[in-house]
């Protein structure tokens, strides 16, 4: 039965993909080769759309593949499959974490982990900023510094960063403003 199979395949992805959305990619490619539910081109398009629509990338892709394979119910089943291992594992960890989080060894471990995670998130921000503010591909062709920098985006970045520091509004409001600005100024 296709729904059961979809659930199991995505359950396995949820269980073995460590480290977030794009870590599921090798498993999705396996689906292409092993089951033939989707083609490689379809998978690439799905990832592109998943990255540019709201929601976690891994969830979006799971919904997409499931939907393509077996319609609305297929999308739902695939998503529940990928989410189930997380719920089970995290509930177990969270249960013990609240018991052990006051132990000195756990406390000292996290005193080291916290700065490192801040650095990791910084690296993710750096990656997004690179894509949003620089045109590395056209720079590689022309070797012209003027092609490397997206001036419109950089100016918008400086303004919005100033506003974020100043106003401390909900992130959603900046995203909505950005959508309007992007359409008006043809970003």
């Amino acid at each position, binding site marked *: 039965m296709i729904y059961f199979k979809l659930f199991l395949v995505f359950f396995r992805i949820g269980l073995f993909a460590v480290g977030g959305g794009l870590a599921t990619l090798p498993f999705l490619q396996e689906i292409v080769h092993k089951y033939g539910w989707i083609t490689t081109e379809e998978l690439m398009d799905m990832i592109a759309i998943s990255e540019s629509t709201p929601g976690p990338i891994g969830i979006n892709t799971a919904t997409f593949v499931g939907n393509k394979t077996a319609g609305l119910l297929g999308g739902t089943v695939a998503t529940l499959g990928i989410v189930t291992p997380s*719920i089970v594992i995290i509930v177990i960890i969270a249960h013990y974490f609240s018991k052990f989080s006051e132990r000195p060894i756990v406390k000292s471990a996290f005193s080291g982990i916290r700065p490192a995670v801040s650095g990791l*998130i910084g690296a993710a921000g750096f990656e997004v900023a690179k894509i949003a503010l620089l045109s590395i591909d056209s720079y590689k062709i022309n070797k012209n510094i003027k092609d490397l920098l997206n001036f419109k985006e950089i100016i918008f970045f400086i303004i919005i960063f100033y506003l*974020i520091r100043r106003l401390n509004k909900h992130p959603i409001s900046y995203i909505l403003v950005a959508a309007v600005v992007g359409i008006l*100024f043809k*970003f």
Partner: protein
Amino acid sequence: MRELLELFFIFFRIGGFTFGGGYAMLPAIQMELVEKRKWATNEEIIDYYAIGQCTPGIIAVNTATFIGYKRKGVIGGIVATLGMVAPSLIIITIIASFFKHFKDIEIVQHAFGAIRVVVAALIINTVLKMASQSIKNWVGIILFLLAFVLVAFFQLSPIIPIIGSAIVGIINCRNVDFKEKER
């Protein structure tokens, strides 16, 4: 029941307006849970992220489950996760059925060009907030910089900095305790 509904809709909002995966939802989580409701501290959120990063599954889902569980037990974990996932289900189902070439629509491309800029600014702002609270000494500064450089420039798996910094944290605190006992 009311709190479960609230949990669902908080994560529904976060899922519905987060572009670009786990780290991108951090600013929204921080605003909703730390600043608006005071359900968690900045440090707790970082801990959940660290755990979510080295356990299997999608970081966004792991974090949602963690926060939901802490608030309302197993049911809370499930409800928060379903809230997080529901917008994806709705939006992707609509796109899959109606827009074959969603990404090629010109107006969508323009909007996303600017949204990416905002996402970068939001993440960097959050990093500044979190770093200023979590870095307490020069060891913290080194761990922060090392994790950043290794992952940003050498594409190292994020799991390695997390495990490494845990070990450094334990050794470092042992030394501090030892010195205090000597006195």
